[in-house]
């Protein structure tokens, strides 16, 4: 069973529906028993980092996610879930889970591209350029686009964990992989067929990079 972590952060039903559509049993949960028994974890989220970390701690989910990661269960971060697995987020000046070394920063303002001032949040479809092969991105065609909604972006401490990058005024890291963890700034559950492909790959991934 796949545990989709429920920490009150936004609408989790779309992730659940997508995983079900792919045919995998899953449960939106914050129960310790479910998370301990799960074979893999999806950590989604829409909202703000400060509130999300406070809710995670209040529910005791921070330790459970850390344990699952250390037990080498495959873990997938999505959007805010991705940001929270780094050490620190500028959003609400928040100390995060620290599963991957690095920080999360606010897009600088004004953000410019070809003399045009870009709007924030970065919302809509944008390319993810794959810079390193990874099983979770297997079969993703070059030029594929994913759906994004965010104002902050991850900056990993170690470039070795970068899998994909995206351009929006600057080039930011939109996909990382570190040990048994993959984290995406985009929303694969809202990214059409290519997004479902990435989710499907994750649901079958053994947690090892090769």
């Amino acid at each position, binding site marked *: 069973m796949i545990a989709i972590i429920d920490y009150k952060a*936004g609408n989790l039903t779309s992730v659940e529906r997508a995983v079900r559509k792919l045919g995998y049993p899953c449960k939106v949960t914050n129960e310790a028993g479910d998370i301990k028994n799960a074979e893999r974890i999806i950590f989604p989220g*829409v909202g703000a980092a400060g509130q999300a970390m406070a809710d995670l701690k209040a529910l005791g989910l921070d330790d459970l996610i850390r344990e699952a990661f250390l037990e080498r269960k495959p873990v997938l971060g999505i959007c805010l879930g991705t940001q929270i697995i780094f050490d620190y987020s500028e959003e609400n000046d928040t100390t995060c889970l620290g599963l991957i070394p690095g920080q999360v920063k606010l897009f600088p303002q004004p953000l410019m591209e070809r003399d045009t001032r870009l709007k924030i949040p970065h919302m809509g*479809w*944008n390319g993810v350029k794959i810079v390193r092969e990874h099983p979770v991105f297997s079969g993703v065609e070059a030029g*594929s686009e994913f759906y994004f909604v965010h104002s902050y972006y991850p900056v990993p401490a170690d470039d070795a964990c970068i899998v994909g990058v995206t351009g929006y005024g600057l080039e930011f890291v939109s996909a990382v992989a570190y040990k048994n963890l993959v984290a995406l700034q985009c929303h694969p559950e*809202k990214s*059409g067929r290519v997004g479902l492909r990435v989710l499907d790959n994750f649901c079958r991934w053994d947690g090892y990079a090769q």
Partner: protein
Amino acid sequence: MLSKRIIPCLDVRAGRTTKGIKFKDNIDIGDPVEMARYYYEEGADEIVFYDITASSDKRDIMIDVVRRVAEEIFIPFSVGGGIRTVEDMRAVLLAGAEKVSVNTAAIQNPRIISEGAKAFGSQCIVLGMDVKRVEKSPKIPSGYEMVIQGGRTYMGIDALWWAREAENLGAGEICLNSIDADGTQEGYELILTRLISGAVNIPVIASGGAGKPEHLYDVLTTARADAALIASMVHYGYYHIKDIKTYLHERDVKVRLTW
């Protein structure tokens, strides 16, 4: 770089679309779930549903439509029409919509924007604007006035002022419909679109007037819209989304080409 979004709009009354897809062989699909799936597979970047059901006791039908659409399509979609309270918003979002749009209710009670943004995040809250061109006056300095009831009632509110105000209240996006251009298929209202898009720092979806791919080109380039709403030009089978995207791509407008 973000792609410009192409968004089919489906009007739904009591669970059926009012304009079904009429192909050249005259097959009419009136089921909004089937139509959503069709456009999802055709390469739509997002879908807008507008519930024009008049009676409030039939609103549960729309929630059921939203739920069934969410099981079939895995791109963002928004639902507008008849959303009056934060609880209405919650019902639509929990049923699986990515965004909700408010129009008349926001003019009558602007706090619904801030309350919705606080409860669900700005990215969920779309302000729908129905706008008509009028004489410039001290009250309407931009020459564009907010209207409701399909343009029959003028609200005495300047459209430019209202767009900025809604952004300040926490709207995450604006769907800007020109009543003058709506239904003409002669092109979007470019001056209005450029005026609003240049005045706010949230995305603007242009609506009303699309009839040919060049109309989308104009509104997405010179008028600086972030997305374009289309209806008849695809519902009646004159164009496929792929054709529109190819046209735009050939003219250096960035669009999503693989799906």
